[in-house]
Structure formats: structure tokens, C-alpha cells
């Protein structure tokens, strides 16, 4: 095992591990499976590090590997049986107190079509910009903008007035 790749992967996962684990939990609806996905991603990062080196933002690359790994897992018959045996709502029990507004936001976002939900959560929750999302999902930046714009539009009834980008005097694009 390449020591420098391992060191880089450790640094990356120390910094982004919780973010990646939560993203995997969102995709898979199961924390144990999410940990599996993070582990597979970690190994793939170490294995591919030599080829990746110098080609951009490593956390974006790892996010893309994680998303693909989650989607691979989701395709398995085992996963589908697991889903069928579980209640539809596979979100974890919140540890922190949630307001009525929080619940409304989560429900509204989870009710969106997958591609809009995916783009919105990568942007607003995971803090990725359009370029990072495009690289993570393998779609064009324009497709990202379109999905963000439409997703935001669908959430407008819930989030109206809740975003700085709907307030004209604040500096945002």
C-alpha cells in the first residue's frame, strides 16, 4: 500500500469523513451501509490516488467515488429487499431538537424528484459549488444550474423568504 496515498486519504477522511458518511447515509438510508460505502470509498481513493494526483480537488473526487459507490449498492437486489422490509421513511432519528420548520424543510426536500434533491443537497447541505457538483454527478454545469434552479422553485412555497438569495440587498449571485 502506497504510504503517501494512505496519508493523503487519512487526511482527507479526517477532514471530510463525517460529511461523506452523512451523504452516504442520505443515499442509502442506513448508517451501517453508509459506513460500508465510506470504507469502500476510502480504499478506492488510496488505490486511485496515484492516477488522480494533481487533477483537481481531491474531496470532490472522493465525493464522486462515494456517490457512485452508493448508487452501486442501491442497485443490488439485497438493497432493494432491505428497502422493502423497512418503512418508507429511512431518515435517522434526529439527535438534535428539530423545529417544525426543520421538519417541513426535510420533508419538502425528501419529496423532490431525486435529481433535484441530489443537486440541492450537494449545494446547500454539503456546500459544493456548481463545478464540484457537476464533477461529482458527472453532469454538465448547466445541468447543475438547471436542477438547482428548478429544485429551488419547487421548494419556494416552503422556503419563501428563507434564503439570502431572495433578498435583493444581500450580496449573492
Amino acid at each position: 500500500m502506497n504510504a503517501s496515498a494512505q496519508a493523503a486519504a487519512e487526511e482527507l477522511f479526517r477532514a471530510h469523513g463525517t460529511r461523506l458518511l452523512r451523504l452516504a447515509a442520505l443515499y442509502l438510508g442506513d448508517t451501517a451501509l453508509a459506513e460500508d460505502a465510506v470504507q469502500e470509498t476510502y480504499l478506492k481513493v488510496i488505490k486511485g490516488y496515484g492516477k488522480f494526483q494533481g487533477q483537481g480537488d481531491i474531496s470532490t473526487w472522493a465525493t464522486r467515488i462515494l456517490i457512485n459507490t452508493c448508487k452501486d449498492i442501491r442497485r443490488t437486489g439485497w438493497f432493494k429487499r432491505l428497502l422493502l422490509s423497512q418503512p418508507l421513511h429511512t431518515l435517522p432519528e434526529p439527535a438534535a431538537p428539530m423545529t417544525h420548520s426543520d421538519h417541513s424543510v426535510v420533508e419538502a426536500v425528501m419529496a423532490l424528484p431525486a435529481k433535484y434533491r441530489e443537486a440541492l443537497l450537494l449545494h446547500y447541505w454539503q456546500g459544493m459549488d456548481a463545478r464540484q457538483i457537476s464533477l461529482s454527478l458527472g453532469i454538465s454545469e448547466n445541468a447543475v444550474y438547471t436542477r438547482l434552479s428548478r429544485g429551488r422553485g419547487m421548494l419556494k412555497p416552503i422556503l419563501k423568504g428563507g434564503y439570502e438569495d431572495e433578498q435583493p440587498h444581500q450580496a449573492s449571485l
Partner: protein
Amino acid sequence: MNNPIKQAFDRQYADVQMDEARFNRLFTLSDQKSPKPRPFKKALALALALVVVAGVAYSASQFLGTVDWQGNKTPEELELTPTYVPDNPVDMDAQRLERLAYEALGEKPPEELWLARMGEGGWLTFFPKIRVNSFEEAKKLLAQSGSPLMLPKNVPGEYAFNDGELSLYIDTRNYESLERLTDENPQPGLTLKGYRLPQEALGDFSGYTLHFVNKKGDQLRLQARMTGANENFGLWQGDNVKTITIPGFENALLFERKGWNQLFLKHAGFGPIGACRMDYFTIAPDRADYPLEPEKLTSATYTLHNNTASGQDVSSSILKDLADEFVKP
């Protein structure tokens, strides 16, 4: 900073954390060189899935080749293309459509602009773009078109043009005629059709992407797109984001991160243009509440990005200098 989605999901997932036990399990994995053993059924299902995925991937690579997010051929060993294979016919066809559209874009002469469509009332994707071979060519085409989009006067001499494309919008006067285009390129075995997009259906340029590289492999990317009055990126400010002032732009936000920087600019206030500019949209039944309608474009957003090949810190001054010299070609 008000970000209700982040706030709600952070609370929902507050218990899902990489604690020390998880880090220990993770960091000892590399010694084992494989993930922890899985239950037999799960392993069997994954093995079968992998066989299927490998078969599908092999067939796809034979038929379509491997393309990256920009539609360029990529080495197989990078394995950065999505391996997700949708399990329902609509998504499968949509994915085929996207790939074929990329292929069509890559293989057709630049003057042929293509629209690809799947099924009746299903997904619709078009890629009205023109590839350019130099910065000067991009300048010339934008100047000829009378587009309100701007470009920097020059790019730093150490950077050489690598690739670029100009996007066009569909003129609203011709939008209705799109549905009546002749099917020119049916693909046997695919529920997919390709159409050549007639020049008369197109308006001016709605955006561009230009990519420059220096000898060290550092990259500089310039991107522009025309937008509606109320559209914005919805970015929020944080530790690594600051508002700066660039004369001529309504907004300027600078992101400075390790290894790369990004500058977002908004230029507002030009006369409204009726257009359908999106290069990816759906007319699927579940989008009935979002009918495909032409927009009024009144502003342009620009994204300037630079990064180092090494991942080391890089100055954002190059982006600010470029933005200071934006002009209409």
C-alpha cells in the same frame, strides 16, 4: 447565514458522525486491503451486481466509448465516469440519450448543431453548442453575434488555450417549430432519435466555456451564461467567501480554497432577450407544474476558476485582474 436546508439536515443527521471507533475501523482497512467481510447474502448480491455492472459497462464501452462529464474521451483506468445504471426504462433511456448526445456533439462538424429526443413527451436534451479552437475565435464569434456577453481583453501569456465552446439559445420565434423537426437519425435498438438543429432556430450565444492550461498543468477556466433577472446561484457566504467590488459588475463573490479559487460575477441590466437557453430539461409528465417556457434573459453570470496542478495554494489575483479587464468583444 440563513440556510434552512443545511440547518435542518445537520440536525437530522447530527448523530451520524465519524467518531474515533469508525476512524479506527477505516484506517486499519488499508492494511487488510479489502473492506470488512459482508454477510453472505449481501456479498452474493454484490458479486452478482458487479458481474452485471461489468457486463453493462463493457457493452457500453464497446458501443459508446467512455466519455467524461464534458463529453471528452477518457482513459478507462481513470474510472471517473458514473457507474450508476438506472433500473427503470425512462432513466435508462435518458442516460442513453445523454451519452448519444455527447457522442453526437463530439463527432459532428462544429457547424452541425444537434438536438436529441427520446420517446413521445419524454426527456428532451439538446446541446446547441459550437466548439472553438482559439480565444481569438471565441472573441470574433461573440463580436459578430452582437451578444451582450463579455470576455477578458487578454488571458495571461503563460496560459495557452486548451478547449472551448459557445452555447446558443433557441430563439423564441422559432421555438414552436422544434417539435416538428424531421427525424434524421433513428438509432436501431434505442428509443432515441437525433435531430439536426436548423441554424434559423437559433439565437445568439447564451454562454461560453473556455479552458486554458499552462506548462505546469495549472488550469484557468472562464465560463459565462445568460440568466433571467431573478435567477442567482443561491450561494451563501462563509469563511472562505468574500464580497469584492469589480467595476461594471453588480455582484462579485470570491471563493478562496486550498489549491483553487473561484470568482463569481453578475452583470445585469441589458435589454431583455426572449429565449429558451437551457441545454437540459424535461417535459416528463411529473414536470407539468414546470412547463417549458421561454425566459427573458437580462443578465449574465460569469465564473472564473483557477487551480494548481499540484494542489498547492494559488493566488486569486489572476482572477481579479481578468475581471477588471472584461469587455464586450
